């Protein structure tokens, strides 16, 4: 436990962001790792609960939060790292990206501000890298078993590391040029600089995980080959089928899926795709001097806001069909220990608002897109979106549905429209078809409790199995899938 009365004596530490005027000019991380002395102080607020909800209900990984909080408080960073590493392969990543369900579930969230566990996790991980504690853990013996993992997002990487450490030969197939999946191509650098990812992937490589990048499974290598050459196959391709809009004007130019927009930007930032090849992969315009409309009020939408701003957008409008959530300025969680439905304002929102370039709207539904009529002719580019306001009602089946409010239509001008309305399910690729996998009702890969798909020896994990979710859940599923595969291999 931290200090017995630490939680009474001390307020939660504040996040330190780089100044807005500075950060919007680059793609470097917006949030800084807190200094050690602040972190140890923060750790003292942890009460080491008899029933730690952070660890048990909050964190999908079951991180031993009270244990490492206590160790950090006692300045035992190395031991803290060892306890952290027991459950989390990539704490430096969750320490940056996680919405921190642990904090939502923290006992202190019942009536005051939770322990800043995400920052503590991040600090431990950063310290571990700095001190050189994070080293490869190659397996001591080789099992002789071979596993192919398709997809190198958080779930695939976690599974890869776990399986490799168990002594199996692991080959990860990634269709993009570099491993990382959504972490590399989806998350903007201002939330996760890519060298953070690189150093982790280096560890995996040093442990003996093999990456086959620029190889699309089912296309560059056949399902049959994979089945033949590997003892087990793990599908970790994520949930990449975006939700689309079937409305007039959808096919106008300038309307893009958010992830494509973000990926293109990440490629540009990293410079990993030569400029001349970029159009081949993503033929996307920049938001520079454009009016941007983001449809969808979630995290991806927020990332679009931050990215557009940095690209030099004139103005950004973010719309959400759901009603505006309750504004909540108290430090505690009104729906403890669950994820509360409250208005969230990201650093991207804050910075865009600070420079007066953001409008956020809720309870509006887009009805159509149209181009702006120029003098010459009708353009094929989007120029305006038409909306109607909605209110939410319950139908006979108890389901919520949006009811349009009469006479509430309005329009917004937009040069670029980004669709960030979430994802439907895993992409139903040739690979999956060739493997003859069953899908569940939502279109994701169906598995049993042991992560095995309808095809024996083929496993699925992460968003491909569950639908789009959090990085931390993906890691958890990757770890558990690895255990399941290991058990499967030894039961053969």
């Amino acid at each position, binding site marked *: 436990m931290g200090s*017995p*009365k630490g*939680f*009474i004596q001390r307020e939660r530490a504040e996040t330190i962001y780089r100044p807005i005027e500075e950060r919007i000019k680059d793609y470097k991380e917006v949030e800084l790792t807190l200094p050690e002395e602040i972190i140890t102080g923060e750790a003292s607020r942890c*009460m*080491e*609960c*008899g*029933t*730690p*909800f952070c*660890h*048990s*209900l909050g964190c999908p990984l*079951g991180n*031993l939060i*009270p*244990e490492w909080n*206590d160790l950090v408080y*006692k*300045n*035992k960073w*190395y*031991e803290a790292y*060892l*306890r952290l590493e*027991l459950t989390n392969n990539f704490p430096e990543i969750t320490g940056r990206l996680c919405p921190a369900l642990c904090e939502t579930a923290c*006992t*202190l969230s*019942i*009536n*005051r501000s939770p322990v800043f566990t995400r920052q503590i996790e991040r600090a431990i991980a950063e310290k571990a890298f700095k001190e*050189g*504690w994070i*080293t*490869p*853990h*190659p*397996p*001591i*013996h080789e099992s002789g078993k071979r596993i192919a993992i398709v997809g190198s997002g958080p779930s695939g990487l976690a599974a890869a590391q776990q399986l490799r450490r168990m002594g199996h030969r692991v080959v990860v197939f990634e269709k993009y040029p570099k491993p990382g999946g959504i972490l590399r191509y989806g998350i903007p650098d201002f939330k996760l600089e890519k060298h953070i990812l690189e150093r982790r992937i280096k560890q995996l490589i*040093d442990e*003996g995980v093999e990456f086959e990048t620029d190889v699309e499974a089912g296309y560059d290598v056949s399902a049959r080959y994979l089945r033949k050459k590997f003892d087990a196959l793990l599908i970790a391709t994520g949930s990449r089928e975006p939700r689309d809009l079937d409305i007039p004007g959808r096919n106008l130019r300038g309307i893009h899926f958010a992830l494509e927009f973000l990926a293109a930007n990440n490629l540009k930032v990293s410079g990993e795709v030569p400029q001349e090849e970029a159009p081949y992969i993503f033929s996307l315009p920049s938001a520079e001097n454009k009016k941007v409309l983001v449809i969808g009020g979630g995290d991806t939408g927020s990332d679009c806001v931050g990215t557009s701003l940095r690209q030099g957008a004139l103005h950004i409008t973010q719309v959400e069909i759901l009603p505006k959530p309750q504004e909540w300025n108290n430090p505690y969680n009104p729906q403890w*220990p669950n994820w509360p439905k409250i208005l969230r304002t990201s650093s991207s929102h804050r910075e865009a608002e600070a420079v007066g370039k953001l409008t956020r709207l809720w309870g509006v539904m887009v009805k159509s897109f149209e181009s702006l009529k120029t003098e010459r002719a009708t353009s094929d580019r989007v120029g305006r979106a038409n909306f109607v306001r909605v209110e939410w009602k319950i139908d006979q089946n108890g389901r919520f549905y949006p009811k349009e409010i009469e006479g509430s239509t309005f329009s917004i001008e937009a040069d670029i429209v980004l669709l960030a309305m979430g994802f439907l399910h895993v992409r139903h690729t040739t690979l999956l078809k060739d493997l003859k996998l069953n899908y569940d009702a939502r279109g994701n890969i169906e598995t049993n409790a042991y992560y095995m798909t309808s095809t024996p020896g083929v496993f699925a994990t992460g968003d491909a199995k569950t639908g789009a979710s959090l990085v931390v859940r993906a890691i958890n599923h990757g770890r558990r899938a690895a255990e399941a595969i290991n058990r499967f291999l030894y039961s053969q």
Partner: protein
Amino acid sequence: MLPKEEGLYNPTLHHDSCGVGFLANINGEKTHRVIEKGIQILCNLEHRGAIGGDMKTGDGAGMLTQIPHDFFKKILPFSIPQPGNYGVGFFFLPQEREKREYATQMVEHILKEEGFSVLGWRDVPVNPDSLGEQAREEMPFFKQVFVTLEKTESHRTDPLYLERKLYIARKVMEREALKSGWNLDEFYIPSLSSRKIVYKGMFVSTQFVSFYQDLGDSDFKSALAVVHQRYSTNTFPSWFLAHPFRYIAHNGEINTLKGNINKITAREHTLSSPLFGDDIKKLFPIVNPSLSDSAIFDNVLELLTMGGRSIEHSLMMMVPEAFGSRYHISEDKRAFFEYHAAIMEPWDGPAAITFTDGIKVGAMLDRNGLRPARYIITKSGTALLASEVGVLPFKPEEVLEKGRLAPGKMLIVDTEKRRVIKDNEIKSSISRQKPYRHWLEKNRILLKGLFGPPRSVGTNEKLLPIIQKSFGYTVEDLRKIILPMVENAQEPIGSMGNDTSLAVLSDKPQLLFNYFKQLFAQVTNPPIDPYRENLVMSLMSFVGKEQNLLEETPEHCHQLKLSHPILTNDDIHLLKNSSIRDFRVSTVSILFPTTGHIGSLQRAINSVCREVETRIDSGDSLIILSDRGVTEEKTAIPSLLAISAIHHYLVNRGKRHLAGLVLETGEAREVHHFATLIGYGASAINPYLAFETIIDLKRRGYIDSNLSDEDAIENYITAIKKGLLKIMSKMGVSTIRSYRGAQIFEAIGLSKEFVDKYFTGTSTSIGGIGIEWVEREKLTMHREAFREYSELKKHLEGSSFKGSKEDNQMYSFTSTIQLDSGGRYSYRRNSEKHLFSPEAIVALQRAVRNNDYSSFKEYSTIINDPKKSLCTIRSLLKIKETTPIPIDRVEPIESIMKRFVTSAMSFGSISKEAHEAIALAMNSLGLRSNCGEGGEDEYRFYSKVGGISLNSKIKQVASARFGVTSNYLVNAEELQIKIAQGAKPGEGGQLPGHKVTREIAKVRRSTPGVMLISPPPHHDIYSIEDLAQLIFDLKHGNPNARVSVKLVSELGVGTVAAGVAKGRADTVLISGGDGGTGASPLSSIMHTGTPWEIGLSETNQVLVKSNLRDKIRVQVDGQLKTGRDIIIAALLGAEEFGFATTLLVSLGCVMMRKCHMNTCPVGVATQDPQLRKFFRGKPEHVINFLRFLAMEVREYLANMGFTTLDEIIGRVELLELDRTKLNEKTRDIDLSKVLYKPGIQHSKTSKSKQQHNKNIPHQWLVSDELENKILQQSRDALENKRRVSFTLQIKNSNRAVGATLSAEISRRYKDKGLPEDTIHIKFNGSAGQSFGAFLARGVTLELEGDANDYLGKGLSGGRIIIYPPAGSSFIPERNIIAGNVSLFGATGGEVFINGMAGERFAVRNSGALAVVEGVGDHGCEYMTGGRVIVLGETGVNFAAGMSGGIAYVLDRNQLFDTKCNLEMVDVEHITDLEDEQFLKEYIKKHAELTKSRNAIQILNMWEEIFPLFVKVMPIDYREALKRIKETELEESDNANVTEEVYA
């Protein structure tokens, strides 16, 4: 007769207690008057006995006298020789003629074989009409035989020759009878002696004389008589278990019996004596283990006495007084006791023993002296000793001396020498009869350097975590167990209950220790306070080879003396390398191979046993069993299994006493481990791995670097020592010598076969795993530990991975091998299961806050889900399928809820807000909440919130008696005597000063900022008859309240419950051992007490069997969480159900388990105003919870096809073990004992006692007549506040006089009472127990005579005056006029006593003022307020645990400080004028009221005497008073709970 072991009933578990006494003509003159008066004593002790379910059968009474020669001569048809030249045998024989004749023939045959001639037989005339039905049914046939022995040479030289031959003959007969398969109901010999004869049987004392007509004959004469009236927790007629036995009558309990029996059995093999020669073999077995503790004690005493020691010498061996350094005793005496410590362990337990060898008659008390023994010596030469004073009236001028036996003391009347011999003379002569001191100095072995400061311990850092894992270490062991012990030198504290799974149901491999639960004392004997009264306790022991018990030689003490049982690594090294003559030490490895098939463990045990035996045969005196050297291929035999297996193997071989067993083990780390190891035979333990762990923790920076390695280890050892004392004290055991091998544990989840083989004599109530699983669990741990290691080793041998060399080093083992979290003390996912999972907490809170039954169902599904929480016995049960009925036919939820109560939670352990929310909730439902032990603020009796009363209807009476006043009692509907608490039964607690806020201090009647201690025992309940007395007192203190007794589930709780029923309580509460606490040592939370399923079932079975089931209601609590729990409890016999933790969770508790830290973040269990602000609970939450529960119960009832809960109570046949829930580990679980249905009709047995509480007729209250007189004569005062004054006679059977009058006053005038002296009652005679109990303000009781125990118990403002009767010639200040434990829990009032009071005067006084002429040991113990003036001597340990109030002692020889316990007080010279004025004023008042000559003399010589007074001032109290004066009471920052904890 005693029923057989059936279900959970075990006939060896009954307890008895009682009244004892003796009467003697000091000059040895034999008179019939002795018999007559003896019977009178018995009759006057009747209230200390009990009667059974048929309301007529007494538990037994009896009398031992000299052979009434004149009587026999007169009535026998044959002639008998001169007195002393013949023997008389008294036989209990079968009624059936044929069997009886066979028996008499056998007796005659054996007598002849042994050289006797039979003079004749006599049928003893009896009158069975007076007996109870049960007693009559079981009545034996009574015969006496008369025998002589041919005169020989030895006959002339040895006065005991005939006695010894008779002894041998009797033992032969007993053995023969046993061989013939006769039980003791069929063949029993009360006495066969040339000196003594025993008349006894199954009756109450009043039936005695009419039953045995012999005793009424005027020629039936004796110079001495020993009498006994029994109160047994059983009601099974058992004629032979009545006292006296052949040598003793005993009021007490031998707690260490199993160990004593094992040890005496082992010693048989080296027993020899020229007095017996070859006949010695005929004496075996020395003891019959199926007898009672007292009878077995008698057997051994007889052996020692017949073996050549005098009876007093033998008793000094068996029940040694405390001889620790704190006692000021002679060196020779100390040496005597130390020498004998090497020969025999104490037979430990509370004991008042009257004894006789036929010539000498005497009595003694054990070292704790908790049973009363008062004596009177008259001028005319009568000596009388009895449990109470007043059993025989004497004229004041006849009395030469009035006294009481002090703890450990003895008194003898020698009718040959015609003298009364006192303790000092007896003991000094015996301790000097041999040069014990020289023998000791020359022969005892003190290894040089042993127990020196430990030097640093080497650790193998590289392997340490692996070895730790192999022994099952977890992070919790390190951080939550070992670290706090190192830091604070005491056991760690925790809070809330234990909701993890039973060891046998856990998915995680368990240490064998976890299958054993510590037993503890409740009711039938008191626990000891190991902190305040540790002077009576001792961890010293001898180890080595024991010699012939019947001899005394210097060699007997040639053993190693250990001052305590924890050996450092240096110690063990020294031992291994010692070279002492005739004291060889050898080491035997207790490792076993991990590579073989299952069965290796058993083979290893067999071979270790044989190896140890070989070493002993070759003469080794000390065997070190070592599990050092664990490798991948070899792991340790579980240390507990190793020690117990070897111990029992050696006991069976008769070799156990030939060598000491010492363990060198990596397994032991927490206190419970050490206790079990010692309890199963280890003499000492070296926990090397715990030491290495400490050093490692130090290295890793967990331990303050200012604490040296040596001190860290020293602290850890200190913590273990304290913990051992605490665990021993829980059972009332004082010395480690008798605790060793006493097996004071019960097993849960181990198979009977396994236990019988390796833990012989231990009870296992639910069966379970055997040796194969023990082996598998051990191997699982071991393999897990070595898994990575072996891989790495292989790897390093042929390294080939890609990392650099540095990486390789970085990836070193030590740093990366991680221990498991543990998850016992804090929840961890994937670790130990907890019933209250986070999901369950959230669901319950959602349910009660939103009044949402579906969430509640979600909650109860989580709790009941066997996949998630197969934690409890009930989770293994299935309710048999029956035909459902529509739910609307089931009784409404309101009627179900009537059976719900809250379990005790004190204001102090939880916040005011939480406490009041619960009271409001219960009162608005018309149910009863329980105020807990902390008292209750008076305002709550009368205040309402929204029309709902704040008053808790159940008021608890716990050991500290906080706030227990007359007014408190009358404002209750139920008074609950808390004997034990599930989380820490047998332990006391303490509320640290900084938690004693103004509010709490007010309620608990103490001073803010002053620490409050709850003693482990109720100082007015040392035995079952005392409990009956307290029940009696409370019923008088509030005749309208029902009285309940809270017990904790453990082996034997059923028989205690039967005793409670016989004590006329209305309700008995069986509390599960895993219930919650505000603070308690972790080991107590985890390892003491059993689940309620077992205790409840046992209680129901025993009550039914004893025909007592309809006399009492049965309530249950402890981790009750869902409707299903209630249904199962009802089926097992419970009628009412208590809830606590679930209510707190409903009010916002999130199972932080930080109550003891005062940092509850939701304001539930904290006194911190900052945190209390966060309390969000509402009474509705509790109401919703209880309604949901009732709804769920109702659904179950409908499904089961019953319309009321009442119908299913005790219907255990509706339950069965659900085999589908069993797995490989649990497949042998056997619940048949729990599910046993006693064979009596349902209708009779499970009768609901719902109406039982109202208007119980009180005709059984002996004092009623007197009390009614008092009420009548006080009417004017009661109604009109007019002064009244009158005089009455009183005798010792008038008990709790004044309590009912006080209740009347409190009801009318509340706490304020009447103006001083409004009612003045003068009494003449000997007052019974609890004279002036709860006496209210405005009453004066003036007693000319004397008083028994518990004078002024709970005094609530009244005044008591006692002085000797006019005409007394003895010196008052040297004679006992008031018994033990006066003013217990007094809160106000005044007491003036012209005479001495016994032990524990003013214990837990928090406000009364007393003047007394002298007090016994432990005066002013735990006092928190009030003033006590002692005008004379005090005993030892004065002011122990005294945290408040002031005592003034006249210290004439200025040695008082040597008798005072200075831990918490200072002894000051009085300088303050205020003090002087106060003293003078009250001594003056004392002189006026009592005519004390002593006081008058002091006043006359004030200038000379005043300077001799000292003032005893509690240190904290002084500080607190100072602070109050400065009016700034600041709370200190941290809740650092020390030593013990509060409730």
